[in-house]
């Protein structure tokens, strides 16, 4: 048995799968103030009359971190930065309690200006005096040299041993210092609450005799073990849309280019599948207006859903961003997008007569007949959704590229299929697919695609290796892994690839991801000869490898 639970803004869905069939699904309202309780209630609903010991895996997708960051209710955290050369320090005032230290590391990892002990001491004393118990530390180019951050961490340990420290170089160590600092900061901010949540879940599962691995869904559509999420809880942000996208992957299981559209009450979320895999945002997740190093799906949202109210005004037809209740045909007070689509398509849905009356009233206000009014709403909705989707295609086609080959061979997005999820998908998706000129699918399990996606998502893991043979060393962007290169002359791209793959394997073992290593993909492999004078003094490599989002091996699909 496999269980997936997805916490949404208003309700929480859970599914229990057995031998490729959905045997139970549960829906409960989400209590945002106690998500653990909501999750356990859904779990109990799923397990009712079943043996918890037979569960093979439980995956939870939760809004806990998203909410914490959105409401800024995380733990007060100080941020110590060593920005070195570059933008004025003011550009990095990321946290209310930000401390700047002197010091500089260059792009090759050379410390050109050391940090001053006295400055560290002053900052830590101040943090301590303010009673701030958590400290995130990030230095510019700490991805090329961790010693500066480590030195600060040692000083904190000595001066303020009770403080918890998160280092940028151990959370997200790719290029981009502000994103690294933000990621480390958010990680520290959300950790206490997240750990409390993890403790409760672990304890409750133990009581229920559920011994299966518990995984958490991440923003990138993959999972990580609950125990490891304690180190980097911020990776669980925005897992809801990731759950839906993985649900579409699970329901289709086709290596196609597709649009997944999740049409809710007042918003539509759109994700892209490229060859059957969800597309990631090149910029990393955007949280509270700040970009991070967290891999997240490329998503676009539009304030347009099935319950969006429509109105007419002196010849104009408007789809508003407001919701006054369900669609008129389901007893709502005003005409909605759903009513317009049902009316336009001549579908008998719910109280069809009531819907027609509300449409007629709105049409009259626009000075139109009901038919043309509904048609105009439909046209406007399809136009806006279509434009958003086309915009996503263009963005994918124009992803930053830095090689001649990539510019000359610019790719084109060729859409194969449209997947609909969410309450109003049945009404809107057929017409949208028609406009895009592709077939569509609104699966019978679409209403629980999110929980299903969580249940069958496999672990993901990405590793970026940077190697410098002149300095005879390599660094990896996770968990502080680094090593020396013993034979710099013989270290070529092939060796760099192997080293990256070894690091990936090491990390995968702890994440229950070892069985997916044969699906390791090289995302980027670049090498540069370092020439000084007229001779080569070394090489610089960068190799990115990953286990991409996908479905667990045990899942073989559900019937259409």
């Amino acid at each position, binding site marked *: 048995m496999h269980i997936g639970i997805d916490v949404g803004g208003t309700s929480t869905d859970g599914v229990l799968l057995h031998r490729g069939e959905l045997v139970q699904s549960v829906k409960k309202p989400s209590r945002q103030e106690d998500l653990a309780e909501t999750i356990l209630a859904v779990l109990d609903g799923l397990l009712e009359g079943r043996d918890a010991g037979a569960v093979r895996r439980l995956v939870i997708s939760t809004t806990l971190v998203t909410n914490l960051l959105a409401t800024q209710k995380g733990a007060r955290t100080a941020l110590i930065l060593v920005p070195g*050369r*570059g*933008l*004025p*320090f003011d*550009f990095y005032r990321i946290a209310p309690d930000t401390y700047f230290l002197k010091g*500089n590391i*260059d*792009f*090759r990892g050379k410390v*050109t*200006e050391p940090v001053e002990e006295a400055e560290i001491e002053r900052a830590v004393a101040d943090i301590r005096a303010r009673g701030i118990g958590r400290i995130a530390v990030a230095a*510019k*180019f700490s*991805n090329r040299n961790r010693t500066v951050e480590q030195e600060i961490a040692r000083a904190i340990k000595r001066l303020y041993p009770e403080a918890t420290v998160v280092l940028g170089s151990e959370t997200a160590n790719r*290029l*981009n*210092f*502000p*994103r690294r600092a933000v990621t480390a900061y958010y990680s520290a901010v959300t950790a206490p609450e997240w750990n409390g949540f993890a403790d409760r879940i672990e304890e409750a599962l133990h009581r229920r005799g559920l011994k299966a691995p518990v995984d958490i869904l991440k923003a990138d559509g993959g999972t990580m073990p609950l125990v490891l999420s304690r180190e980097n809880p911020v990776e669980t942000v925005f897992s809801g849309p990731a759950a839906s996208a993985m649900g579409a992957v699970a329901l289709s299981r086709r290596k196609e280019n597709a649009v997944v559209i999740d049409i809710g009450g007042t918003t539509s979320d759109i994700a892209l599948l490229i060859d059957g895999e969800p597309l990631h945002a090149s*910029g990393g997740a955007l949280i509270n207006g700040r*970009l991070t190093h967290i891999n997240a799906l490329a998503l676009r949202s539009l304030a347009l859903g099935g319950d969006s109210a429509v109105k007419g005004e002196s010849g104009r037809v408007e789809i508003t961003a407001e919701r006054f209740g369900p669609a008129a045909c389901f007893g709502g007070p005003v005409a909605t997008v759903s009513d317009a689509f049902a009316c336009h398509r001549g579908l008998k849905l719910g109280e069809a007569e009531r819907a027609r009356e509300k449409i007629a009233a709105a049409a009259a206000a626009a000075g139109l007949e009901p038919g043309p009014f509904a048609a105009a709403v439909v046209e406007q909705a399809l136009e806006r959704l279509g434009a958003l989707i086309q915009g996503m295609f263009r963005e994918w086609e*124009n992803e*930053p*590229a*830095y*090689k*001649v*080959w990539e*510019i*000359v061979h610019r790719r084109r997005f060729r859409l194969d299929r449209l997947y609909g999820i969410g309450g109003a998908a049945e009404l809107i998706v057929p017409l949208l697919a028609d406009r895009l000129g592709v077939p569509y699918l609104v699966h019978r399990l679409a209403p629980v695609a999110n929980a299903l996606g969580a249940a069958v998502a496999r672990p993901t893991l990405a590793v970026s290796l940077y190697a410098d043979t002149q300095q005879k060393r390599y660094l990896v962007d996770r968990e502080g892994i680094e090593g020396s290169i013993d034979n710099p002359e013989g270290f070529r791209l092939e060796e760099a690839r192997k080293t990256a793959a070894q690091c990936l394997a090491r990390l995968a073992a702890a994440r229950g991801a070892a069985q997916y290593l044969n699906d390791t993909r090289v995302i980027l492999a*670049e090498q*540069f*000869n*370092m*020439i000084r004078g*007229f*001779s*080569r003094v070394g090489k*610089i490599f960068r190799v990115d490898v990953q286990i991409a989002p996908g479905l667990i091996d045990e899942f073989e699909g559900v019937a259409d």
Partner: protein
Amino acid sequence: MKPTGLLFFPAFDWAISPSHPEREERLLYTRDQIFEEGIMDLPQVREYQPRLAEARDIARVHFCVPSIKDIASEAHLVAAGGSLVMADAFAAGEIKNGFAIIRPPGHHAMTVAHGNRGFCNINNEAIMIEYLRRKYGYRRIAIVDTDVHHGDGTQEIYYHDPDVLFISFHQDGRTLYPGSGFVEEMGAPPAVGTTINIPLAPYTTDEGILYVLDRLILPLLEEFKPELVVNSAGQDNHYSDPLANMRFTATGYAELNRRLAPDLAVLEGGYSVETALPYINLALIMAMAGIDSSNMREPDYDPAAFKEDPGNLARLDRIAALQLENFRRREDERAAAIKKGPPFYSTTRQIYYDTDHIRESQQIKQRLCPNCCSYRVIASAAVHAYGQISRALCFSIPLYCCSACREEARDAYRQAVQEGGGADYIYLQDRAADDYRRFDSRGDTEETIN
């Protein structure tokens, strides 16, 4: 406030040869610095992606011998296309200014292109400027070439065009490639005074360059009133550059760009890939984006390290006075040249292609017309390294040509095509009609370049 446009195209898969200064590594550390700063994430900066320049974009500026395909590789087309993307964004009002950090560079490439000169095959700035003029109607343009080497390609392309003010400061040609760029190179008679060269003594510092900026370059721009200012932004004046001997710093480059306030900047040379380029490029981006760049300096920067020689400043004063006078006399000089006749101004020139070892000789004729800056005819013969000779006859009609001159030039082209006249290739560049043709005498075929 509109953002600054940034187009970063490091051509990580292109090099002239593995250990050449123009190699893959050139912008590697600049990439590291740009991305580590997170500069692309700032609201003050918007990143753009390059596209391929089209053949007609190249033909608007160059006569490529034997063909565009042979001279401009895909890398060159992407670099040139990158400058066009910046131009479009600027002309459309999306950005307040733009910086194209592109390679390969272009400012040594001349109108007739037989191969690579000074690491350049096609001239990115000129291609960008002619595109802007054609598509958006710009006319008066100023180019300030801040590369340490004389921008002889750009100078040659605009030598006869009074609507383009070309200003180049560079290390004195007696001490550095390409050995030109002296004050007496002032433009062809119909455009005399709109080419301004400022040869600098080796070891000139920030102070010296900013001195000549304030006393000569900015006043020239003030008087010329260009619709557009382009910085041909080389970075090899830096004190650590291996190919030259100047003492300019990243801080100096930022200050230069702050005062110059170019609308568009296009990267040219600069070969101190590790100790200069990351700092100069970032400082320049910040200066253009209106961000305080005082914290963006080299790790070994010492403001007191280089002192300007007072004798050098006095010399710069003399150059400034002389060039301002040359510039202010330009209308009279031009009128006198046209009045005096003969109907054609003609000259000859030898050009050496250092990278490709080509020796080219040219005969140049420019029509002197009271109504327009008229057409040019260039007869070019190039001797390649292995002894092969190629000859080209080129007719170039500027965008703002009067109709009489234009007809005359087109007739001359047609007549040359009929008679052959010993050229392997005969070209027509009619910017007024955006019509570009290449006639191959051996195959007796004419093609229109699109």
